[in-house]
């Protein structure tokens, strides 16, 4: 620090003039604080209003997305089980396919298959195979009546 810099520092310190804190300064300061308080409150209010608007817009758009997603959920799709039960039925039907039309219509109508499948899924196929070698006489269900006719036509 050379002579000029030292003198510069001294000038800056020595030229301080006494300036009392007067009531007008206090009032002005209070007014500034009040203005700033109001500005902050206004900013806070605007911010909360914007937040509410954003939330409401988000909630408004949210159900729309849900309805779009909803159809993609295949609700009553356990219809896959009849398709599983159908193959066991088809071999017998393929054997007896040409003559008996009753066996071919049975898998075509889902309602009827659904009604007949619960026994057919597990029990009907074995029973059909059991019935085939045995007596085919008086059993009323179509699945049981079909195999004998199939075997008959196959022999013809």
């Amino acid at each position, binding site marked *: 620090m050379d002579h000029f*810099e030292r003198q*510069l*520092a001294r*000038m800056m310190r020595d*030229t301080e003039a006494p300036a009392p804190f007067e009531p007008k*300064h*206090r009032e002005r*300061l209070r007014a*500034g604080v009040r203005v*700033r308080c109001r500005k902050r409150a206004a900013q806070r209010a605007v911010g909360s209003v914007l937040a509410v608007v954003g939330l409401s817009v988000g909630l408004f758009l949210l159900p729309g997305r849900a309805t779009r997603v909803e159809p993609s959920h295949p609700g009553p799709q356990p219809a896959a089980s009849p398709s599983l039960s159908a193959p066991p039925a088809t071999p017998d039907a393929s054997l007896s396919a040409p003559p008996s039309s009753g066996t071919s219509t049975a898998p075509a109508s889902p309602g009827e298959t659904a009604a007949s499948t619960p026994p057919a899924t597990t029990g009907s196929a074995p029973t059909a195979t059991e019935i085939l070698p045995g007596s085919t006489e008086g059993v009323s269900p179509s699945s049981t009546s079909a195999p004998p006719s199939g075997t008959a036509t196959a022999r013809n």
Partner: protein
Amino acid sequence: MEQSRARAFDEFVAARWSVLVHLARLLVGGDRHRAEDLLQESLVKLWFVWPKVADDAPEPYVRKVMVRAAARSGQRRWWGERPVEQLPEAAVVGDVSADVVERSRLEAALAQLSPKQRVAVVMRYYQDLPEGQVAEALGCPVGTARSHAARGVAQLRQLLGNVNEPVR
């Protein structure tokens, strides 16, 4: 609670007003009204953080706010000045003393500097702050702050010439 806060704040401001006004005048280059505006803005900011800084260091906080605002003042183009028909205050007869002359010279010379140079010079030579803190206040690297201070001092050297001992 609020009253005790206001009382403590008023006591602090009343005690440090003179020093802070002088710093503000140096930072703005001598304009008393701009200096008071700068100080008031800084004190309003202090009011809102008073519970946090009251026990630690309220004055360094105000100084930092003032310095940063003064350094940014170069980007500000309008200070809200309006032309009036009559001057708001007249010079007091007999006010011209040696101190006032010296202060006027100094403030006139400081007013010639750019805001960042002025802030760097004031922080370095009036507040005796190290270059690192000057750079932090200016928001620039230390080398840049050093350059601001050096250029400011060089310009003041030309404007003030050889500063002799004060005329008293």
